[in-house]
C-alpha cells in the first residue's frame, strides 16, 4: 500500500539524530555534485572540451542573467557562487527526486495512520519535498542577503533600511520591511516545498493508477517544474541581493 506522508520518513537514527530519506537524498546529491566538480572542473582547460563546455555555457548564461540586476560584471562574478550553488543544489535535488529507480528502493514498515497495515518507505525522496530542506535554504538565502547587504553598504546604512526615525511613514515602512523579510522565508520555503511535494504526490498517484507509459509526460512536466522552481528560488535570491547591496535614498 502507498502512504503519502507530508513529513520525511525516518530511515534510521545516529546517536538519536534521525536520518530521513530526504536527508539521504541531500547527501547523495551533494556527493554526486562534489564528485562531478572534482572530476571534471578541477583543472579547466583554456580551450574547453566536453563537460567543461556545458558548464562554461551555463556559467556565462547565469553571469549574463546576473549582470542585469547587479549592474556590473564584477558584482555579478562576486555573488555568482552563492546564487549558482542554490540553483544547482535545488535543480539536481529536484531531478534526482523523480528518478524512478531512486524512489523504488526502500523498505516496508508498519503504517502509523493505519496500524496493522504495511506501507512502502523509500530510502530516497526528493529533498525539496521536505519543508526542512526548503526552510533551511530560505533562511540561508535571507541571512546571506542581510550579510551581503551589510558588507556592501555598511551596518548602519543597512539597519537604517529597517529602523528609520525620519518620520512616521518611514518608520512604518521599516517595520513592513522586517515583516517582508520573514515573509520571504515563508514564501521561499512553501513555494518550493508545495511545488515539489505536489509533483511527488502526482507521480505516485499516476504511477499507482497506470504504471506504464502514462507517467512519462508527467515525469517530463516534473523535470520542467523542478527546473523552474530552482530558477525562481535563485532569481528571487538574486533580486533580493541586488536590492540589498544598494543604498536606500
Amino acid at each position: 500500500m502507498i502512504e503519502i506522508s507530508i513529513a520525511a520518513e525516518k530511515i534510521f537514527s545516529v546517536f538519536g539524530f534521525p536520518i530521513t530519506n530526504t536527508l539521504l537524498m541531500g547527501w547523495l546529491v551533494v556527493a554526486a555534485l562534489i564528485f562531478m566538480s572534482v572530476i571534471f572542473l578541477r583543472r579547466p582547460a583554456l580551450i574547453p572540451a566536453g563537460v567543461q563546455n556545458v558548464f562554461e555555457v551555463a556559467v556565462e548564461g547565469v553571469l549574463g542573467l546576473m549582470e542585469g540586476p547587479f549592474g556590473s560584471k564584477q558584482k555579478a562574478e562576486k555573488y555568482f557562487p552563492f546564487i549558482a550553488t542554490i540553483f544547482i543544489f535545488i535543480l539536481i535535488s529536484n531531478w534526482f527526486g523523480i528518478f524512478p529507480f531512486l524512489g523504488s528502493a526502500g523498505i516496508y514498515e508498519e503504517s502509523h495512520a493505519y496500524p496493522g497495515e504495511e506501507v512502502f518507505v523509500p530510502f530516497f525522496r526528493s529533498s525539496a519535498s521536505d519543508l526542512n530542506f526548503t526552510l533551511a535554504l530560505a533562511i540561508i538565502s535571507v541571512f546571506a542577503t542581510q550579510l551581503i547587504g551589510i558588507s556592501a553598504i555598511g551596518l548602519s546604512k543597512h539597519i537604517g533600511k529597517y529602523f528609520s526615525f525620519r518620520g512616521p511613514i518611514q518608520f512604518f515602512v521599516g517595520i513592513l520591511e522586517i515583516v517582508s523579510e520573514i515573509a520571504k522565508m515563508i514564501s521561499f520555503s512553501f513555494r518550493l516545498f508545495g511545488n515539489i511535494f505536489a509533483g511527488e504526490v502526482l507521480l505516485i498517484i499516476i504511477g499507482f493508477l497506470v504504471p506504464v507509459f502514462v507517467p512519462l509526460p508527467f515525469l517530463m512536466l516534473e523535470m520542467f517544474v523542478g527546473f523552474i522552481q530552482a530558477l525562481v528560488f535563485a532569481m528571487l535570491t538574486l533580486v533580493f541581493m541586488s536590492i540589498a547591496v544598494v543604498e536606500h535614498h
Partner: protein
Amino acid sequence: MLAQAVNFGILFFVFLKFAYRPILGMLETRREKIREGILMREEAEKKLKEADSEKGAIIKKAESESLGLIARAESLGKKKEAEILTEAVKKSEEVIRDGKRRVEEEKRIAAESFSKEAAELVRLAVAKVVERSPEKIDGELVDKALRELETV
C-alpha cells in the same frame, strides 16, 4: 533542517574551491588572452601597413636606381661598340694592306722566277737553233732577247 543547511554549506565551499574559482579564473585568463590577441593583431596590422609603405618606397628607389644603371650601361655599351668598330676597321684595313703587300711580293718573286726560267728556255732554244752548246752562247745576247721579249 540543520543537516540540510550543512549540506548546502559543504556544497558551497567545495564548489567554490573546485568549480567556481577555477572556472571564473580560467574565463578571466581567456578574456585577457583574447584582449592581448586583439591588441597584438592591431599592432601587427599597423606594422604590416608600415612595412608595406616602406616596401613601396624601397621598390620606387630601386626602380629609379635600376633605370639609371640601365641608362649608364646603354651609354657605356654604345661607347664600347664605337670603339670596337673603329678598332675592327683599323684591323681590317691593316689586314688588307698586308695582303696587298704580300700579293705584290709574290708577284715580284713570280716575275723574277719567270724571267729566269724564260732566259733559260730562250738559251736552250737558241742553242737548238744554232746547234751550239748552251754554255757557249753569249749570255748578253740572251739578256737582250729577253728584254725585247718583255717589251713585247
